[in-house]
């Protein structure tokens, strides 16, 4: 994506924006652009884009993924998401987020009526296919016939083995990053002829690309190239099917197009994957911690007090920001269960939320025109609590469906599958006229929600400001109940089973733990909590729009949770405070850009230095305070409690002894 912008700006104005920003405020200017003195030729643009790509690739290797070489997969995923956040923010800052059309380097023109089949074939498609296969062939030959290629394959099997044969894994990795970044940059420029350039849309091309790579088992460049072309053909064919009369209108063409990579990835992975990891694939490396909270009720009560105080002292837009923070916290709690406890990296939780939101809104709609949307949406007009409940149920069902591939797919592959699922959900559900009740891309009006006689929308009907107290209370109640539920889950047997599965699926199964059941449980609970947040997001708005549920908004949420700490409620609190448009936000767009860039960098740092998140930094401080406290205790009584000690709870909850 970034090199493609490099090409675009070189062609248009002769400027090359470097992938950073003027990060030092004040008189010292950090150079952020190189001026080539006027628009360059296509070749000049391509060279500039490739240089930019190589620069990025080597920077990633030396500063991000090199240090992470022996880290658990989850850290690499976090770092990748951090890089993504950073580059998207930088691109949005330099170039804006509006999609733009850029003339690429591929030839124009079409061959009409190919082979007398009646269809047309554009020159650029032929050129692109040839380049893909050509690059695939060169790569295949390189890895097959050269010593460096052979050493790379050897190092992939065993980096220690390669060291003993005199190959430095670091140098091999640099070479491969170099190759990879040149190809990526080339691909970025080639895609310009096919699709509009935008930070978000371009990045989603990763989904079909990874689908092709997984098809090739991440090892064969030729299969990947051919598979990618085949997948594109299937996508087009599927989209064309939707043009026929018999095709059900409920499945939009764009939806089926975006579902194809998902289906391919899932099928390929399921056919290759195992229900339990096989002996050679087992790697036990430290995961981010999911510490036991010593006193859940106290934690939740403290949160309740703080929320009540914040709500009482704020009003108007500051209360709206508080509510945004609380809703984000609910969504993060859903990730704590799935990512923190169960270790399954899901990028689809915001999509679960969106499904609940659309279902709840549609079921509650009754055809009354709204002042906020020109569209009139009909529906059964169910009571709002019932519609919300059904929305959460729908999200849970979808969560369980996404869990099915997760039974056999692990680590980064699962993250890709969930990203593909989120992208498919956007096209299949949120842009689906049959679901939204209006034309595709329309904003669905949210009927004024009423729970048991009380109006619980965010907008105060009298003043028109978004600070309705009833809504704040509703969100806080859902947040605190989910928080208590998640904390109890962690100290109960179900949470321990999740941690057991996260730590080691094989030995969990050997002890009679139903790994499949535990994973389904985690996805179900997580999707239900995410669905709750989705309904709350809907109530906070007057209309539902597809952008709210974009996979990248979901990634932002997860990014911030990682920064806070993915396994704990403390992490949720820190993450939620940092959320865009949350309690700490400013209204300036410059601030939003900085947030994206800085959180990206923070995420990478977290992945490398503090995999347990910022919340884990609090523990040593508390311990130190306790130690000092004990040292000065006049009665000499031990005040320190063990982490697993829940005796304080038994007095409060007599059910423990029953």
């Amino acid at each position, binding site marked *: 994506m970034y090199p493609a912008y490099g090409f675009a700006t070189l062609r248009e104005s002769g400027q090359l924006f470097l992938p950073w920003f003027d990060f030092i405020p004040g008189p010292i200017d950090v150079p952020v652009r190189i001026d080539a003195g006027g628009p360059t030729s296509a070749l000049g643009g391509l060279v500039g884009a490739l240089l930019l790509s190589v620069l990025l690739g080597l920077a990633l290797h030396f500063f991000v993924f090199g240090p992470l070489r022996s880290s658990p997969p989850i850290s690499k995923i976090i770092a990748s998401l951090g890089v993504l956040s950073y580059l998207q923010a930088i691109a949005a800052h330099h170039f804006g987020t509006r999609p733009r059309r850029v003339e690429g380097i591929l030839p124009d023109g079409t061959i009409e009526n190919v082979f007398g089949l009646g269809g047309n074939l554009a020159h650029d498609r032929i050129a692109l296919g040839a380049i893909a296969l050509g690059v695939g062939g060169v790569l295949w030959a390189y890895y097959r016939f050269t010593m460096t290629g052979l050493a790379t394959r050897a190092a992939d099997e065993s980096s220690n083995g390669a060291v003993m044969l005199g190959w430095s894994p670091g140098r091999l990795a640099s070479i491969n990053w170099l190759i990879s970044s040149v190809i990526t940059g080339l691909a970025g420029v080639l895609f310009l002829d096919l699709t509009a350039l935008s930070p978000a849309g371009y990045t989603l091309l990763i989904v079909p690309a990874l689908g092709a790579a997984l098809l090739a088992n991440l090892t064969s460049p030729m299969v990947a190239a051919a598979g990618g072309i085949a997948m594109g053909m299937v996508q087009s064919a599927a989209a064309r099917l939707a043009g026929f009369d018999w095709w059900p209108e409920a499945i939009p063409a764009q939806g089926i197009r975006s579902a194809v990579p998902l289906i391919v990835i899932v099928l390929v992975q399921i056919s290759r994957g195992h*229900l*339990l990891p096989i*002996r050679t694939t*087992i790697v*036990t490396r*430290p*995961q981010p*911690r*999911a510490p036991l909270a010593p006193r*859940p009720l106290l934690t939740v009560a403290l949160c309740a007090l703080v929320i009540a105080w914040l709500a009482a002292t704020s009003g108007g837009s500051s209360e709206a920001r508080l509510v945004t923070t609380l809703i984000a916290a609910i969504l993060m709690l859903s990730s704590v269960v799935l990512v923190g406890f169960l270790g399954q990296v899901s990028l689809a939780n915001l999509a679960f939320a969106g499904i609940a939101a659309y279902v709840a809104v549609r079921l509650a709609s009754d055809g009354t025109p709204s002042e906020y949307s020109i569209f009139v949406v009909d529906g059964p007009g169910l009571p709002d609590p019932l519609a919300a409940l059904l929305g959460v149920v729908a999200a849970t069902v979808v969560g369980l469906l996404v869990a099915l591939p997760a039974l056999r797919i692990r680590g980064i592959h699962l993250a890709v599958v969930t990203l593909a699922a989120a992208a498919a959900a956007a096209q299949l559900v949120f842009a689906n006229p049959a679901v939204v009740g209006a034309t595709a891309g329309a904003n669905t009006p949210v009927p004024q929600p009423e729970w048991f006689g009380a109006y619980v929308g965010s907008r105060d009907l009298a003043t028109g400001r978004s600070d309705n107290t009833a809504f704040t209370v509703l969100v806080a109640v859902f947040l605190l109940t989910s928080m208590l*539920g*998640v904390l*109890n*889950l962690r*100290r*109960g*047997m*179900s*949470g*321990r*089973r999740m*941690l*057991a599965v*996260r*730590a*080691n699926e*094989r*030995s*969990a*199964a*050997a*002890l*009679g*733990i*139903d*790994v*499949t059941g535990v994973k389904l*449980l985690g996805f179900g*609970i997580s999707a239900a909590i995410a669905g709750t947040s989705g309904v709350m997001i809907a109530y906070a708005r007057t209309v539902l729009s597809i952008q709210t549920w974009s996979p990248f908004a979901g990634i932002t949420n997860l990014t911030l949770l990682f920064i806070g700490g993915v396994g704990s409620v403390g992490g949720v609190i820190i993450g939620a405070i940092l959320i865009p448009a949350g309690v700490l936000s400013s209204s300036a767009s410059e601030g939003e850009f900085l947030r994206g860039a800085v959180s990206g960098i923070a995420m990478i740092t977290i992945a490398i230095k503090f995999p347990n998140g910022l919340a884990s930094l609090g523990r040593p401080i508390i311990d130190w305070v306790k130690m000092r406290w004990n040292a000065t205790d006049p009665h000499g009584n031990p005040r320190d409690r*063990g982490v*697993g000690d829940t005796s304080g*709870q038994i007095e409060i*909850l007599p*059910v*423990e*002894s*029953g």
Partner: protein
Amino acid sequence: MTDNILETKGLTVTFGGLNANDSVNLNVPRGKFVGLIGPNGAGKTTFIDAITGYVPMSAGTATFAGEDIGSLKPHERAERGLVRTFQSLELFEDLSVRDNLLVAAYPTKWYSFILDMLYMTPKDQETEDRVNWALDIMGLTDEADAMPTDLPHGRRKLVGVARALAAKPDLILLDEPAAGLDTAESQKLGQHLREFLDHDMSVFLIDHDMGLVLSVCDYIYVLDFGEIIAEGTPAEVREDPAVKAAYLGAEAGDVQAAAAEAVVGAQSSGGE
């Protein structure tokens, strides 16, 4: 006929044309201590993997307590009382030693998670007692609240065995529990293992440590290149010429010397 808790008939496991287990017939009588020995790569762990459902059987049957378990998933076999340990340390690193055992011991219902989220799961005294007993018998009571990563290697091996005990096995399958232990630890472990029989359990042990296997087992099978080449009581196996030739090496007349060699082999290879 004796009452066998585990019976395999013609059990065969094939990896890419190679028979890792070739038509293995093996019985574990209820309440007995049976051992399986063999050199590295003989297919011992593969045999445990096959009967616990971690690798598919290509042919043959496995019967546990009278039931054909060939099509059951690993956790379903464990629920029926067929519990294994792992050669490599496969503990739950995020959980304390006690939690490692509790998670194995606590019974689950489909609605357990609801009770958990409401913090209303009743304390199961029987399960707690079982966990305390398992900690006690393996001498881990003082380390119950430690994290597995904070324990030395030998202690962690014991946690693995204790965890399997907590899962209420009728037959416990021990995959090289003595590998990586020093001689004293290994002998102490042997004393513990015989105690299991007093608690309604049968024991199936595979190990490189010949001394350990010969001293604790009632009956021993010898595996080489995936095939059973001998079986009998420790005395019979000790004197079996086929065993001496195939397993101990033709020139090694002294079983104890070979046993020492086997221990060294286990320690240096750390697995097969």
